């Protein structure tokens, strides 16, 4: 497929936003049970704002993918059948809940709604947080399923696609939460950096698993089944157009296989290999905002390459009809 930058930015940016919120709410949940030192409202408030900024940036990027952005509202109508439509609904729902969650923290509008049997108070932000967590995971599933539901694109048609969206988004979000904590609540750093590392390892396993899987894929469609002629040697001579068409532009990445291989190594390096030792360094006591920020930026750039590769690697069966011009 031809990787579209709008979609690359959309999926990576909202992944960071979702992961960041999940990190914030993890901290709040631990703190509610006294497992982590309690933080004041401004920690969660600023964090929510930052997460929201990433989600808004992703939403803006997504509009560049549309030919008719003024009609985007229509995309919410077919949620019964279309994962894209579901994403269009869940993303604003998540953003709205996240805004309420952040606002409740920032303005300390945080009444106790009741008590758990153990005596822990249930706060309003907790209810909003649970709701937003639900939306965050739903959004991950929607985003992943947009690609995983296309059975012709066999590189994507696997549960690993959804799992990797969750794990990569989670890892990058927890890393940004670590950067945020380094500024506002350094006491949380060991907790957040530790979880970032765990997610990073899981994401590495998931991504490498999908790379290995895709390497072994054998195409289901062949030129023989595409035109219905049983002969081992069929060569295309014309494709009905000399100057290219939508079909030659949208479904080919147009890069040599060697570049694809290089990008694969590059994203493995940037997303996993470089941030991991930096995080270990922070965990071992070398607490430095610059180090964490560097790790986040390097990883985010790596995620852009990862997403580019994700799209470029998918081989669409329609390409069988568009192999040569003359």
């Amino acid at each position, binding site marked *: *497929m031809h990787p579209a930058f709008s979609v690359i930015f959309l999926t990576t940016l909202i992944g960071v936003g979702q992961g960041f919120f999940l990190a914030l709410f993890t901290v709040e949940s631990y703190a509610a049970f006294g497992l982590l030192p309690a933080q004041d409202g401004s920690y969660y408030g600023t964090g929510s704002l930052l997460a929201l900024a990433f989600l808004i940036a992703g939403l803006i990027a997504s509009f560049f*993918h*549309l*030919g*008719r*952005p003024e*009609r*985007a509202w*229509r*995309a*919410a*109508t*077919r949620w019964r*059948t*279309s*994962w*894209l*439509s579901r994403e*269009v609904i869940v993303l604003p729902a998540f953003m709205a809940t996240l805004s309420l969650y952040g606002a409740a923290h920032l303005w300390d509008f945080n009444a106790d709604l009741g008590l758990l049997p153990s005596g822990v108070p249930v706060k309003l932000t907790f209810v909003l947080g649970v709701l937003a967590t639900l939306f965050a995971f739903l959004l991950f599933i929607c985003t992943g399923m*947009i690609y995983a*539901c*296309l*059975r*012709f*694109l066999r590189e994507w048609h696997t549960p690993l696609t959804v799992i990797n969206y969750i794990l990569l988004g989670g890892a990058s979000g927890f890393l940004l939460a670590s950067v945020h904590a380094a500024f506002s609540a350094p006491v949380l750093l060991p907790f957040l950096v530790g979880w970032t590392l765990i997610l990073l390892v899981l994401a590495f396993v998931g991504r490498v698993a999908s790379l290995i899987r895709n390497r072994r894929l054998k195409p*289901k*469609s062949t*030129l023989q*089944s*595409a*035109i*219905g*002629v049983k*002969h081992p*040697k*069929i*060569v*295309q*001579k*014309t*494709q*009905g*157009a*000399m*100057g*290219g*068409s*939508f*079909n030659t532009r*949208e*479904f080919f990445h147009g890069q040599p296989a060697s570049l694809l291989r290089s990008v694969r190594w590059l994203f493995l390096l940037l997303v996993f290999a470089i941030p991991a030792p930096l995080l270990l360094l922070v965990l071992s006591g070398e607490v430095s905002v610059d180090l964490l920020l560097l790790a986040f930026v390097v990883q985010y750039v790596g995620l852009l390459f990862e997403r580019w590769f994700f799209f470029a690697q998918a081989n*669409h*069966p*329609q*390409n069988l*009809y*568009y192999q040569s011009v003359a």
Partner: protein
Amino acid sequence: MTQLALVIDLNVCVGCHACVTNCKEWNTSGPAGPLVDQNPYGKNPTGTFFNRVQTFEIGEFPHTETLHFPKSCLHCEDPPCVPVCPTGASYKRKEDGIVLVDYDKCIGCKYCSWACPYGAREFDEEQKVMKKCTLCVDRIYDERLSAEERRPACVRACPTRARLFGDIHDPHSEVSVAIRENGGYPLMPEWGTQPANHYLPRRKTRLRLREDEIERADNPLKIDRELPQPGKTEPTLDDVTSW
């Protein structure tokens, strides 16, 4: 239920592109607005077409065969492009099975084209919406046209009558008979999309005769050789019989 479809006879198609040009002419002049042509007189002309004729070479010289392969939307009975559309712009008509795009609802996200394994949809770079073959839906129901003209433009244009049009759910229609009797097949059956359009294969008319069919093996002349010739002095049949 009706399912309109094209049946394309690859045995007859000569690859003249008349269906392509007539399709483009009709659909660029239609109520949906022009089909875009970009850079038409430049080095790399490109544009949106509903129909393309491709050419494939089968086999290795000298045993090669040229196959001209017209390709348009197959109007699948289980179209994968329809459920993925987030706006409902892409839909399949219940009454005649034509898969259409509502150009006023399409947001141009191109997701439907990703979901089509045949590459049948082409994006209009000027109107910024997805376009595809409509089976000339604005023509086949137009009562002002004569019955003969109420067929898709590509079918009308074909000089060799390689394109048949009709209802494949009616077992007695021309297309159903052609599919049934001439080995009509769908493209990429492995995806279960059940394309309505079918293709008729290349067919060779060959005489399959064995040696003994050309020359009678049990010809008595062969077994008994020549019959003995009666001698000149022998009585003839006329001599020994009286009528």
